[in-house]
């Protein structure tokens, strides 16, 4: 009996020992993740000098964390106040007199409004943190609220209708797994009209109705026109149209209120025509998803404390599916897909590892957003190119602009009236010119006015595709008192309105160039893009005036327009180093005549879906992730050299001890520094970019944290300011441990569409600065923001993380916020480079487009921040560019980003979600760099881990050189960040074993010892028995 007992106990302890050993072997690869959750660290910076050196190169401007939090609140209010867009205001319904009027909040979503978006931009207050929502925001600003309605919406009975796929306030269902069906449903969260009792309705009588209409946003999710409404009993024609319950609720609000004001709490453009045309709807205010504190700013607009000055960052179409960009949006699979496809002749079936079943054909060419609607409108007015054909018409009859657009890009009203004059446009090719605009407040209320400058470039039918109008810059006045005027200056860079000609051959013989064609360029400052185009059309040809269609109160004015003439066509000035790099992203270049692109020569074209696609053998190279094979080549590179350099020596530090620059990346010292790194360190750094950037002891670069996202550090990644700190950091000036705000969520700012709508670079700069301050208090050095992808369609549910449908607006916003972050030592990481236009099956999605469209729209949005190197780094996209994973596409990474734009910063992948297609081999070889993952991710793949491939890597000189290039770019970026804080010439990196790892070691030892003991006792007892 005793033998059996000992043997059994040995089995238990041996099993526990085995599990403990596995955990001991595994957990170091997730060390950073575990450390941040437990508040521990494996690396400490130890000062070996006398400690007198000032090691804080970036100091906080705030005395305390509380002051910083208050600054976030204040800025969020301002952004929201200036970013809310007044779409309609009749009968002087707004502003509301808080002294005499009582308001009733209508719409069940007033309880759980959309504040951000699920996953990377999730806004949720931590315990003790201010979480006003609509109700708290209005109450704080002195509104008298009908609380009976609020209590009714908060009741258990109404709660059953709450949007809650995961948690209350979430109506979309994101997924990281492959999808073989379109998104199925959306929950509106609205309640049936039958639930409103007479008593509740009576209490709303005589009050002003504030109606909340909400649509959610989410990473890893999209809207689909075929969705059904999952709120019990509710229905909609399309998810971005009003639902039946919403219509019923609005009808009740109209019956029981003195006035009806609709707040559109959604970042995706909704279909608002019925509200716009309903005379009983007095006002419509777009407020987007305003983050944690933006509700105060909305309340300020409603009360008149702030005069609205926001402008729409997107076109609000009557039917969100009416643009050509929507034609191929959704679920399209190769014929040899894994799910229901099969091998096609010699083309094998795609595998799970390939992660390549899906494609997206961007058939709209350059005509996305207003570039489609406004260009077709001009051709409608001028009677050109079948513009009035029924193709693309949402009514089924002849296409007519007024039937298609509710509110154009740039639209936004004020409580006052402004006049504006475009005084001058001063341009020289190759330089950034200026436009001056004089704005006067002609009304009787003080307010700011945003000015958008548009241009129409000369267009020849059948020539280069061109939008009839495009944004080139913007500015904003200070608050102008009634009668006051201000002249503002807007930068105008001709590079931003050059067209990309794929066929042009430059003097150096290379093909592809940025072209400015000879002719008249019409600049205009109309109150929105449509008004600006009307201004231009009326100036160009007075006979068109009678045909023009105006939207609401826009007006024609010749003083809005200036003409600049270019005598000769130019293809060289903006084309240095430029050549075609995206020809294989055009599906017609791979399989001729696959798609018919939208063209100004004939508007009947571009309306066909690409329902079936069989990849060619050449396409399968990319789709099977076989872009590079490691091979022995070259003479090798130097690793582990003793050059006596440290990371800190690359910095330029001024007399005040602040970083003012960094050694030029072309300086050979960088190569010498990189050569000090060992191959093992390099592999670790590149293979394990998840949650942090690994420390590089050989050059004294400390471990560096980089996390999501666009509205502030995401709470699920950095659970409060205190997360990254350990007691060893307690001497640091921004150390956080037990302050009341220590556990607060930092994801608080209004979402990017609202920021874009402000058209206020000062506010954007301040946002970047405060994000930099957040980083100092959270011990973070990089933020995976801003989101810079284009709003290509209204149905991408991740539009909340991106600014606009217009690439110039995106570019200026991204560059401005990145520069401000940099000034505070925070590395911006613009994402997702590039063409991340669809979240459905984003992992591995083949994205096809023309090179002209790619460069003029999506890439132009990234260009300013990257060419100025204000963004320290970029995150690549999940999707493929053509058939090649975006993170392993040398065309965008090396040719365009590095060579054409001069981008010097680090490149990292998005979270590795498909390790075979997002593989380290193809990524590094193509000029990418760090993989956002951990070593175990590659254990179960065809490629295996980088660590295991060390021997062959060591023979591949080309590959090692790429590794060193990547390391250099990251060192260059990190050197300019706050990661240098705490480092001096005499600091050393000390490795420590955190308690949890010590505990695992102890468990290994104890279980091993017990096992041996029980084995010994078992054998001994056997002998005794014998």
């Amino acid at each position: 009996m005793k033998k059996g007992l000992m043997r059994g106990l040995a089995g238990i302890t041996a099993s526990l020992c085995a599990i403990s050993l596995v955990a001991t072997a595994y957990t170091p690869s997730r060390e950073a993740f575990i450390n941040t959750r437990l508040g521990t660290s494996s690396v400490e910076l130890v000062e070996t000098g006398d400690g007198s050196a000032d090691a804080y190169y970036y100091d906080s401007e705030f005395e305390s964390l509380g002051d910083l939090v208050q600054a976030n609140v204040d800025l969020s209010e301002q952004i929201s106040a200036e970013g809310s867009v007044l779409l309609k205001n009749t009968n002087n319904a707004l502003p509301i007199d808080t002294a005499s009027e009582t308001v009733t909040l209508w719409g069940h979503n007033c309880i759980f409004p959309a504040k951000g978006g699920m996953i990377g931009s999730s806004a949720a207050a931590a315990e003790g943190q201010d979480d006003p929502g609509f109700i708290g925001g209005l109450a704080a600003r002195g509104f008298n609220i009908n609380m009976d309605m609020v209590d009714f919406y908060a009741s258990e009975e109404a709660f059953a209708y709450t949007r809650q796929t995961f948690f209350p306030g979430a109506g979309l269902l994101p997924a990281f797994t492959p999808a073989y069906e379109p998104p199925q449903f959306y929950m509106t969260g609205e309640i049936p009209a039958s639930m409103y009792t007479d008593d509740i309705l009576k209490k709303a009588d005589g009050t002003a109705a504030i109606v909340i209409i909400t649509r959610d946003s989410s990473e890893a999710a999209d809207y689909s026109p075929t969705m059904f409404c999952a709120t019990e009993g509710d229905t909609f024609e399309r998810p971005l149209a009003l639902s039946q319950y919403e219509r019923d609720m609005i009808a009740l609000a109209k019956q029981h209120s003195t006035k009806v004001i609709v707040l559109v709490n959604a970042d995706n453009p909704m279909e608002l025509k019925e509200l716009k045309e309903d005379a009983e709807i007095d006002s419509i205010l777009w407020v987007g998803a305003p983050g944690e504190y933006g509700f105060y700013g909305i309340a300020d607009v409603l009360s008149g404390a702030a005069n609205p000055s926001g402008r729409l960052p997107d076109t609000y179409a009557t039917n969100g599916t009416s643009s050509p960009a929507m034609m191929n949006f959704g679920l399209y699979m190769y014929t040899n897909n894994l799910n229901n496809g099969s091998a096609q002749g010699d083309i094998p079936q795609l595998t799970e590892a390939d992660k390549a079943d899906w494609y997206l054909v961007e058939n709209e060419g350059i005509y996305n957003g207003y570039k489609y609607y406004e260009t077709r409108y001009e051709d409608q007015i001028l009677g050109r190119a079948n513009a009035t054909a029924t193709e693309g018409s949402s009514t089924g009859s002849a296409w007519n602009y007024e039937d298609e657009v509710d509110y154009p890009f740039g639209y936004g009203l004020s409580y006052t009236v402004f006049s504006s004059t475009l005084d001058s446009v001063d341009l020289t090719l190759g330089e950034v010119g200026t436009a001056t605009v004089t704005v006067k407040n002609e009304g009787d209320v003080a307010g700011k006015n945003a000015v958008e400058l548009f241009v129409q470039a000369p267009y020849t039918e059948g020539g280069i595709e061109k939008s009839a109008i495009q944004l080139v810059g913007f500015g904003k006045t200070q608050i102008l008192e009634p009668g006051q005027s201000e002249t503002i200056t807007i930068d105008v860079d001709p590079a931003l309105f050059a067209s990309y000609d794929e066929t042009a051959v430059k003097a150096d013989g290379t093909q592809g160039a940025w072209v400015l064609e000879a002719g008249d360029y019409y600049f205009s400052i109309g109150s929105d893009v449509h008004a600006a185009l009307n201004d231009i059309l009326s100036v160009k040809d007075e006979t068109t005036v009678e045909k023009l269609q105006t939207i609401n109160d826009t007006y024609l004015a010749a003083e809005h327009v200036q003409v600049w003439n270019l005598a000769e066509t130019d293809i060289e000035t903006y084309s240095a180093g430029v050549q075609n790099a995206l020809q294989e992203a055009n599906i017609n270049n791979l399989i001729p005549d696959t798609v018919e692109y939208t063209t100004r020569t004939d508007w009947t074209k571009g309306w066909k879906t690409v329902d079936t696609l069989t990849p060619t053998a050449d396409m399968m190279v990319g789709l099977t992730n076989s872009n590079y094979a490691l091979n022995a080549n070259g003479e090798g590179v130097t690793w582990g050299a003793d050059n006596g350099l440290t990371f800190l020596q690359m910095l330029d530090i001024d007399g005040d001890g602040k970083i003012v620059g960094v050694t030029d990346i072309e300086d050979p010292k960088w190569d010498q520094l990189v050569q000090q790194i060992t191959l093992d360190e390099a592999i670790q750094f590149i293979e394990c970019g998840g949650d942090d950037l690994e420390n590089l002891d050989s050059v004294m670069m400390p471990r560096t944290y980089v996390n999501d996202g666009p509205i502030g550090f995401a709470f699920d990644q950095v659970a409060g300011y205190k997360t990254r700190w350990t007691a060893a950091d307690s001497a640091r000036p921004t150390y956080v441990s037990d302050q009341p705000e220590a556990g607060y969520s930092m994801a608080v700012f209004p979402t990017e569409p609202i920021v874009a709508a402000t058209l206020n670079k000062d506010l954007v700069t301040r946002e970047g600065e405060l994000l930099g301050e957040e980083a100092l208090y959270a011990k973070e050095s990089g933020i995976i923001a801003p989101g810079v992808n284009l709003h290509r369609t209204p149905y991408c549910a991740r539009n909340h993380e991106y600014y606009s449908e217009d690439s110039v607006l995106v570019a200026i916003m991204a560059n401005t916020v990145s520069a401000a972050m940099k000034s505070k030592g925070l590395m911006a990481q613009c994402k997702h480079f590039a063409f991340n236009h669809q979240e459905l099956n984003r992992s591995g999605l083949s994205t096809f487009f023309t090179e002209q469209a790619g460069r003029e729209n999506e890439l132009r949005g990234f260009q300013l921040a990257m060419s100025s190197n204000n963004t320290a780094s970029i995150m690549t996209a999940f999707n493929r560019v053509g058939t090649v994973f975006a993170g392993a596409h040398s065309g965008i990474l090396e040719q365009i980003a590095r060579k054409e734009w001069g981008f010097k910063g680090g490149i990292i992948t998005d979270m590795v979600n498909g390790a075979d297609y997002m593989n380290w081999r193809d990524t590094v070889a193509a000029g990418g760099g760090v993989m956002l993952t951990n070593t175990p991710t590659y254990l179960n793949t065809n490629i295996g881990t980088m660590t295991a491939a060390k021997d062959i890597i060591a023979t591949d000189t080309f590959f090692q050189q790429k590794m060193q290039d990547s390391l250099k770019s990251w060192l260059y970026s990190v050197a300019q960040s706050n990661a240098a804080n705490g480092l001096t010439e005499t600091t050393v990196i000390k490795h420590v074993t955190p308690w949890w790892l010590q505990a695992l070691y102890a468990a290994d030892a104890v279980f091993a010892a017990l096992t041996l003991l029980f084995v010994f006792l078992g054998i001994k007892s056997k002998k005794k028995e014998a």
Partner: protein
Amino acid sequence: MKKSFGLFVELIAAIVGIVSIVMYGGSLVKTQNTYIFLIAAVVVAVIAAIGAQKNPGVCNWGAPIAAALAAAGIGYSITVMSDAIGYVISGLYTMDDIRGWVNFMIAACIAWLLYMIAGFTGMAKEA
């Protein structure tokens, strides 16, 4: 020497262990280490069961060894599934996505428990 109840437990454990290996093929993410350790556990268990008739003193130790090997295999399967489990917790994956792994875990843990029970009982009574 007589056959014991433990022999049957050990054999059942080995059979369940084989079933778990087959089921592991349905796991969302797999690792070779799990296959190696689980197969090793089955091999040890079977050899021990066969040898127990002749040399129970040594072969009865096969059960605890198999238990330890199975535990290692289970441990490795958890390491590569940690991300997926996290996604289920955060809602990005559903239980359906990891159902194959969960089924495997149930079978593998049953086999592991049976190995341990066989360790206590022994497979053949020693003289």
